């Protein structure tokens, strides 16, 4: 076969055959044994996975006005190894980005392939950095959650972190719905690591977040916030909150707290105290505003009649070694006047006719000691103890709002029972969750109210509470022509040593308007107002101002011409 070939050529031939055999073995190994890992390494070198960020859902108020939206802002980053003159670059960047030159120089000098210089900077700053045209400085678009109304409804909405994860409020509670699902585009990159746009080989589209429609009315919210802010500042309170609610559906129309924060700058400038949603996360002893519970249960159980007289001991009453006081001394008072003038002694004497078990039954019926079920995160129960643990003084104390703690929302719900004719409603702040096309995914239906007191009792209580505003402790809540009704509360706070403070108070006013055909329930609470601390002086004016504006907003006109207007007209004539 190989006749005529020299042995040297044969050797070369054998060597070549051996070499090709080795190559064949290697080829078989590469193809059969190491195919997968090697193909992965190869594909990683030329493939590129681009994250496609979903749009976070919009939060709307009940009139479809945007309360929270997402915009794309530019973030500036550096590839330090590409920046040549780091000294000059850091100086230029510092002046534009408003950061210190040393910090930027430090970032540019590190042995990393990537360093953030500014996250989500304003369009003007981004333009200025681009104009510098520094090699190694690049830009990326990132979504940023923004709140066009600033502080308005900040405790309801909450805020998100840099990566758009909800951290507080509804942003946290409905993060799963709002966030959406991230998508990916798998493409090919060139030698310079740039995406080759025509060679996408797979794309998984992102799923945008769902939109949320709230029961909040932006206009009512801003009115409530403005008036609360005025009262909070005027009386140097430690904290304050206001709730405006529809008494028939339980829809929250406004919920505001002070101190507050701007969610656009929450991570930088808000303290934990200012971020707390006091209306549902803080409990307090309600004081006299809790007398509506004792009064309603007494009337419902027919334990007293509205005109039944009680002797109020001229303001001082000893009971089991403890002396109770009224802020104004009274003699004989009809039961309706006991509530009207907020007599502690009259209330506790009446409560004794009811007994601990029946009072406790109504406290529970009014929803105290349990969460209301509102869709906001962090709601607390409040504290109500069982009569088996009560002392001899507990019945008296609880009937006038001591030894029991409540949230502002629970109090609003309780007064709504009287306003709507005896039904306990479930507060609701989220109306619907909709997808991007407007299709309703989840509807938060108004829960069927539970009847807890009769229509007659509720009506009687409305009349009694009208007297409180008309000529009782809450005259400062009167709005001419609208006939509001409500109850004041001024509760001593408990000191750290367990005794009642004589300098720290919680003032409250819970009411509804108009008293004969209630449209709105408004609760105003102020924590440690100074120097005046009476609910009727501190909270009632806030109620009055909010009521006056809201009635006009709802185009509900006064039934009587306001006195001042008549006088003005006379003067004009």
């Amino acid at each position, binding site marked *: 076969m190989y006749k005529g070939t020299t042995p040297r050529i044969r050797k070369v031939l054998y060597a070549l055959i051996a070499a090709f055999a080795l190559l064949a073995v290697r080829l078989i190994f590469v193809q059969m044994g190491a195919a997968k890992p090697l193909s992965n390494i190869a594909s990683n070198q030329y493939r590129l996975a681009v994250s496609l960020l979903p749009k976070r859902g919009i939060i709307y108020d009940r009139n479809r006005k*945007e309360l929270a*939206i*997402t*915009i*794309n802002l530019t973030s500036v980053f550096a590839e330090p190894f590409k920046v040549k003159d780091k000294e000059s670059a850091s100086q230029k960047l510092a002046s534009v980005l408003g950061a210190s030159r040393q910090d930027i120089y430090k970032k540019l000098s590190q042995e990393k392939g990537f360093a953030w210089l500014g996250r989500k900077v304003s*369009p003007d700053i981004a333009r200025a950095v681009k104009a510098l045209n520094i090699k190694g400085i690049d830009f990326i*678009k990132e979504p940023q959650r*923004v709140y*066009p*109304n*600033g*502080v*308005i409804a900040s405790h309801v909405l909450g805020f998100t972190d840099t990566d758009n994860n909800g951290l507080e409020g509804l942003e946290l509670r409905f993060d799963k719905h709002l966030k959406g699902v991230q998508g990916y585009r798998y493409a090919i990159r060139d030698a310079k690591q740039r995406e*080759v*746009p*025509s*060679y996408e080989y797979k794309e998984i589209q992102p799923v945008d977040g769902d939109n949320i429609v709230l029961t909040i009315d*932006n*206009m009512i919210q*801003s*009115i409530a*916030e*403005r008036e609360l802010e005025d009262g909070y500042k005027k009386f140097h309170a430690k904290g304050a909150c206001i709730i405006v609610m529809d008494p028939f559906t339980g829809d929250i129309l406004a919920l505001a707290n002070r101190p507050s924060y701007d969610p656009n700058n929450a991570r930088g400038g808000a303290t934990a105290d200012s971020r707390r949603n006091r209306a549902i996360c803080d409990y307090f002893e309600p004081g006299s505003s809790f007398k509506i519970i004792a009064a309603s249960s007494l009337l419902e159980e027919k334990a007293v009649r509205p005109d039944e007289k009680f002797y109020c001991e001229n303001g001082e009453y000893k009971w089991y070694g403890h002396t109770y006081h009224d802020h104004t001394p009274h003699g004989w008072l009809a039961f309706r006047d006991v509530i009207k003038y907020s007599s502690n002694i009259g209330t506790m004497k009446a409560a004794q006719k009811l007994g601990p078990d029946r009072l406790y039954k109504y406290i529970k019926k009014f929803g105290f000691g349990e969460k209301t079920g509102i869709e906001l995160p962090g709601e607390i129960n409040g504290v109500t103890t069982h009569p088996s643990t009560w002392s001899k003084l507990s019945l008296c104390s609880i009937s006038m709002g001591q030894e029991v703690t409540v949230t502002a929302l629970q109090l609003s719900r309780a007064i709504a029972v009287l306003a709507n004719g005896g039904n306990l409603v479930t507060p609701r702040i989220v109306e619907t969750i909709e997808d991007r096309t407007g299709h309703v995914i989840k509807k938060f239906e108004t829960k069927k109210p539970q009847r807890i007191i009769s229509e007659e009792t509720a009506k009687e209580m409305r009349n009694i509470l009208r007297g409180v505003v008309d000529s009782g402790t809450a005259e400062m809540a009167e709005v001419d022509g609208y006939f509001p009704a409500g109850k004041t509360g001024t509760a001593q706070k408990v000191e750290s040593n367990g005794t009642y403070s004589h300098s720290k108070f919680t003032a409250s006013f819970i009411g509804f308007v108009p008293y004969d055909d209630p449209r709105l329930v408004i609760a105003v609470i102020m924590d440690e107002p100074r120097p005046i601390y009476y609910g009727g002086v501190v909270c009632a004016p806030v109620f009055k101002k909010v009521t*006056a*504006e809201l009635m*006009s*907003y709802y*185009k509900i*006109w*006064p039934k009587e011409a*306001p006195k001042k*207007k008549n006088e003005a007209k006379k003067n004009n004539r």
Partner: protein
Amino acid sequence: MEKNTNSHCGKALVSILTVTFVALMYVNQQALIYQMGLKVKQNNDVYTKLIDHNKILVYNVLNLRSPVTLEKRLLAKEVELSMPSQWQVVKKAIHTPKKFVFDYKPVATKGFLANR
């Protein structure tokens, strides 16, 4: 013999030319795809930029329309507004213009022009 050789050369030449042409077409097509991809990307970038700009403008409008901002601006100009009283409101009867109804009658009942 010579004729046979010429015919072989001709076939080879045609094959080479065909392969070259196909290869060139392929390269040209790839270049076009790449160019088109770049153009699409550029257009998409412009579109995204405009959308982003629009969103920022929408945010600015919302911010300006916000009751808080309006209130601050009005207070700065010492303009105090309040909700109107009943005597300040004049109810205007809403005139609803008669809706224009297009009285459409099909011109044909059969054939291409028929109302489908």
